């Protein structure tokens, strides 16, 4: 067995195990931690495929930012396990239909002869080849309109998130930092000169 193959199976085993634990664990914080582990192993698999930009971006964006916010929310929740588990049987039919659909899709993609996944080779590039530059060039030439559209949609998301926090009148009082920095000691403190008194 080649060393690369060994690394691939090692990472894939961790990936499958971690993703299974994400849905089976009861404690949501532990589940989120396993999701982070799954992201890490996935990025390791991508490194093996020489997609270093995608791999590092996965860690940077999903592990470094998205999951942090996820954990923020999950840690604040007051989780009641019993309430989470109720309604299992009523959701089961719909859930299993979706699961079967996804399974069928996956088997079509992986097993079907149309895509030739097993015959296809990862394009081998020389070591000086920069993945980042290639992705960037494609994004700003061939795919510039989809790219700009996606950024506008993200901007709408940012504005909407900011607008959601601005409902109603402001209840908190605050000092404007612009005025704050110009405060001098003599505006606030009055130093009184008092003559010392003679003690009797």
């Amino acid at each position, binding site marked *: 067995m080649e060393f690369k193959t060994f690394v691939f199976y090692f990472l894939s085993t961790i990936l499958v195990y971690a993703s299974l634990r994400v849905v089976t664990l009861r404690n949501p*914080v532990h589940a989120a931690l396993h999701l*982070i582990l799954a992201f890490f192993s996935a990025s390791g698999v991508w490194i093996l495929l020489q997609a270093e*930009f995608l791999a590092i971006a996965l860690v940077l964006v999903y*592990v470094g930012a998205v999951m942090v916010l996820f954990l923020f929310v999950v*840690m604040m929740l007051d989780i009641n396990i019993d309430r989470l588990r109720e309604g299992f049987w009523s959701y089961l039919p719909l859930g299993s239909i979706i699961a079967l659909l996804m399974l069928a899709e996956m088997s079509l993609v992986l097993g079907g002869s149309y895509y030739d996944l097993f015959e296809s080779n990862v394009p081998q590039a020389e070591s000086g080849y920069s*993945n980042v530059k290639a992705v960037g060039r494609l994004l700003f030439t061939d795919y510039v309109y989809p790219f700009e559209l996606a950024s506008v949609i993200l901007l709408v998301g940012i504005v909407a998130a900011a607008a959601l926090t601005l409902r109603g009148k402001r209840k908190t009082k605050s000092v404007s930092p612009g005025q704050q920095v110009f405060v001098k000691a003599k505006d606030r403190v009055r130093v009184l000169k008092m003559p010392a008194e003679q003690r009797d």
Partner: protein
Amino acid sequence: MVETLQQLLPGFLIPYFNALMQLGHNFFGALWPDILTVVWTVIKVMLIIAPLLLVVAYVTFWERKVIGWMQVRIGPNRVGPWGLIQPIADGLKLMLKEVVIPAGADKSVFLLAPVFAFAPALVAWAVIPFNDVLVVANVNASLLYVMGVTSIGVYGIMLAGWASNSKYAFLGGMRSAAQLISYEVAMGLALVVVLMVSNSLNLGDIVKSQGQGRFAEMGLSFLSWNWLSLLPMFGVYVVSCVAETNRAPFDMAEGESEIVGYHVEYSGMAFAVFQLAEYSAMLMCSTLISLLFLGGWLSPVRFLPDSIFWLFAKIAAFVFFFFWIRATFPRYRYDQIMRLGWKVFIPLCLVWLVIVGCWMMSPWNIWK
């Protein structure tokens, strides 16, 4: 690699070395080169981590001495000559102390959190170039790798706060996690400007690109380093580094005098690992500032040769700078920290990004 080792080894060892290679080849067959690569990588990793930990230990000592002198005290001077054994004594003490795990704490996460805090600060050293050739892994996207790896450090703080099963630790963890994510944005934007002007994501290439320019041709290469041409970004990056490492005046994470932080429930070695993480992150930040803005191993003037000692001198200067501001400034208020990050640094970075982009497209481009 085998050839380089053969050249490096003293003459009388070469026959033994060759015999070992032959033995390994007979025993493992085709797997032998892979095994050799793994072993050689582990040796290189050890060569970085062991000195790093020693330096971290003595950085704590140096900090206590420097802050002592700044506050007209003497600092530690009892253990060993001039107090030089003090960090070893501190380490031993912390190792022998009990690690108290609070009742109701999530034990596995509680013990995992310090690892999460410490590991990124070590892993990032894999791609740091010390000079033209001395680097463990010379990857194309090393700057991206450093950003990705260091962004994991925030988990240590959040998980420590959550797993302690204490409201104070939890609030402390939330507070510093929010601070870390805010300043990461400003740091990332400052780095985007740096990689734009150096046209590379490789740290070695970023350093090399700083060695050319009009001032470098005049022999004053310290004026063509990135700190001058990207001055506002240099300021933003340095201040964000202080905030990222949770050092004073941004030490909301610890705040020992009036508020409590995420590691209030930690004791013994588990606490020591958090301290190690803070100091190695500080070294990491100083190294990154030196590489990205201060020309790394390049010499400031032409008549002196480039050398690894320049890099060490720059790192030491920045570590000293960290101590200096700790002894000088009072702690920021939390809302002021958040305001500085979101309302000052991020808009400034965005505007400067556009300015540098226009500058590079104009005929006055100095980074060709």
